[in-house]
């Protein structure tokens, strides 16, 4: 049975990496704007879709698909900021208006993808090409472990990106400006920071992270359709609330916790209780520690 436990831990790490990447995008936008971008799940789906088009239709290798997906979803995300968020912000609209606007954008993005799917594939789902990653699993006999190359790629890609992001936010001038804007927009602009530029960069980064998560998710699950963002939208929200809204490390931690609870609950009590357990924990955290595990109270967040 130890073999099972180890294998399940591997499963948690690979699924958690994807959740963490996805939640990071949510978290970035929230920490800088103070608004949830609910179209983030649509960007996740678009990432998976662009990856599919590049590797399947254009028959390019995986790394091209990954980069193309990140660039396209990053740009889509910038477009979201320009169309769905900035005009509202300029008019001083309430945060809830921006939230609703992002829901509208999500629906639009999903519908466009649906039309494209039918046009390109004559149905609403399609699979990544079979030979994209080697299928032969890496077997560690003594531990009873099997790791597929796809899952290995997912974990490595996620780790690399998370480390780069951490570096970018804490060590670069752009990161410092982002944190300044997150702390206080007004002060930041008085200090000569181009706030609108920072917003654009934040949206680009968040979109690219979401898109990357989408391709990696599709690598594990093979099939893409316009609705794969629906489930992960809630999972990502749960992850950032658990970890702490606006905290980068919190988003990562939250992603892994949610994946862990899902995998363990399926194995022990059955999938029917899986989401119930996840949301029960969310509820408990909100009661006991509303700012999340790694979150700081609103006033000191930066």
């Amino acid at each position: 049975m130890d073999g099972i436990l180890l294998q399940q831990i591997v499963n948690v790490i690979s699924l958690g990496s994807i959740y963490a990447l996805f939640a990071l995008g949510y978290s970035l936008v929230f920490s800088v704007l103070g608004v949830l971008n609910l179209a983030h799940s649509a960007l996740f789906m678009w990432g998976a879709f662009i990856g599919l088009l590049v590797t399947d239709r254009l028959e390019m290798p995986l790394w091209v698909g990954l980069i193309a997906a990140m660039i396209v979803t990053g740009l889509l995300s910038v477009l979201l900021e320009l169309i769905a968020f900035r005009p509202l912000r300029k008019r001083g609209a309430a945060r809830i208006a921006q939230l609703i606007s992002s829901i509208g954008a999500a629906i639009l993005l999903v519908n466009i993808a649906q039309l494209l799917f039918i046009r390109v594939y004559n149905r609403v789902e399609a699979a990544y090409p079979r030979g994209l990653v080697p299928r032969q699993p890496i077997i560690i006999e003594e531990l009873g472990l099997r790791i597929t190359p796809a899952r290995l790629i997912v974990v490595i890609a996620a780790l690399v990106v998370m480390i780069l992001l951490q570096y970018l936010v804490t060590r670069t001038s752009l990161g410092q400006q982002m944190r300044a804007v997150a702390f206080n927009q007004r002060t930041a602009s008085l200090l000569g920071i181009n706030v609108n530029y920072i917003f654009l960069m934040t949206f680009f980064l968040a979109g690219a992270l979401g898109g990357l998560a989408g391709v990696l998710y599709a690598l594990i699950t093979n099939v893409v359709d316009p609705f794969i963002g629906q489930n992960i939208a809630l999972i990502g929200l749960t992850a950032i609330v658990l970890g702490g809204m606006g905290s980068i490390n919190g988003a990562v931690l939250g992603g892994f916790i949610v994946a862990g609870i899902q995998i363990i609950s399926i194995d022990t009590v059955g999938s029917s209780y899986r989401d119930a357990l996840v949301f029960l924990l969310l509820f408990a955290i909100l009661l006991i520690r509303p700012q999340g595990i790694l979150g700081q109270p609103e006033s000191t967040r930066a």
Partner: protein
Amino acid sequence: MKKFRLILSVLFILPLIFVSVVSADEHDEDADTPPIGFWEECETPQNLPDELTIGAIFGLSEAVAVYGIAQRQAVELAVAEVNAWGYLGEGVTLRVQFEDSAGNAQQAIAAMEKLVVEDGVLAVLGPTLSTEAFAADPIAQENGTVVMGVSNTAIGITDMGDFVFRNSLPEEAVIPGTVEQAIDALGLERVGVMYGDDDDFTISGFDVFVDALDDNEIEILSVETFARGDRDFSSQLTSLIARNPDALVVSALAAEAVQIIIQAREFGYDGPIIGGNGFNSPAVLDQSGEDAEGVIVGAAWNIGDPDPEPSSEAFQQAFVEEYGVAPDQFAAQAYTGAWLFATAIRCADSDDRADIRDALAAIEDFPSPLGLYSFDENRDPVHDPIAQIVFEGAFLPLASVIEGAAESDE
């Protein structure tokens, strides 16, 4: 501006006229020997109005569109044939009003209300999922309008009333035979079971599987569950495969079936996977590729049937010609469903809903793509099922593959 509009509309209308003239010519040639229909058994109707409308509720968006779009295409094909061949008499046109249920019970109810109460259609095909049928069919029953499921295979669909029909073989008719043949052929003793526990179709499939396994004294090592829309099955598969089953038995819809097949192979399981009706789709084969080898599934219809009905061959040909892809069982059933409605209307020679119901129930030995087709006293379908296994990338009849393997062993 007015002139411009006139020119524009002429430009639009001209090709339409041209196309309709051309297509009418084409169909005149075919009209000699229609491969499907009660041309002899029932007289050409005399008492029908010029336009008849039936409804169809299919899942045309969301995940369920895997089935729904093929169903709509098949019904459109059938109705085009009915009209082109004058099945309901000269100058009588059959129309279909399509509604999208999106795999959602509430939306299916709304669609049924609209078709039956507002539009007053003669009869309704669908809805796609059993879950939707349980929600929406009572409305048709209350209003005395026939509803025929062409893909509802859960237990109890036709118990909803005497206006509720289906032409899709229920799981309880397909699964026991499939399980028994698989056990006989492969000598199974211990299996792991996995099913979706939030969908009527996958739950009733699971119940029938468990009964069939018990009847054959097969040990069930473990039962794992999942939810509709799940993509990652690593947890369930890890714990099932660790118990070394002789076979995996899975009750799932197509979208989840693909993932389960692929991921089971990734976790190193290479034994047989016995599936419910949801596995029976070319999409499952396409998307799971060589991982699908050894998947066993019972079916109402098989495109590779070594001895197909003439109407089945004609249907395949017409479908490929029209849509460029091979039809699946769901398309064959939807196509047959539309033809059954047309036949009921022809034989009833009436646009009265009760007459149509009676004529439909009375249909016997109709030469459909599914085989010689009849309804039993519960308005459930009667025709021969076919047990099949994925072998070298295609669904083949299980018996013939086992025979072939035995011969090559000798």
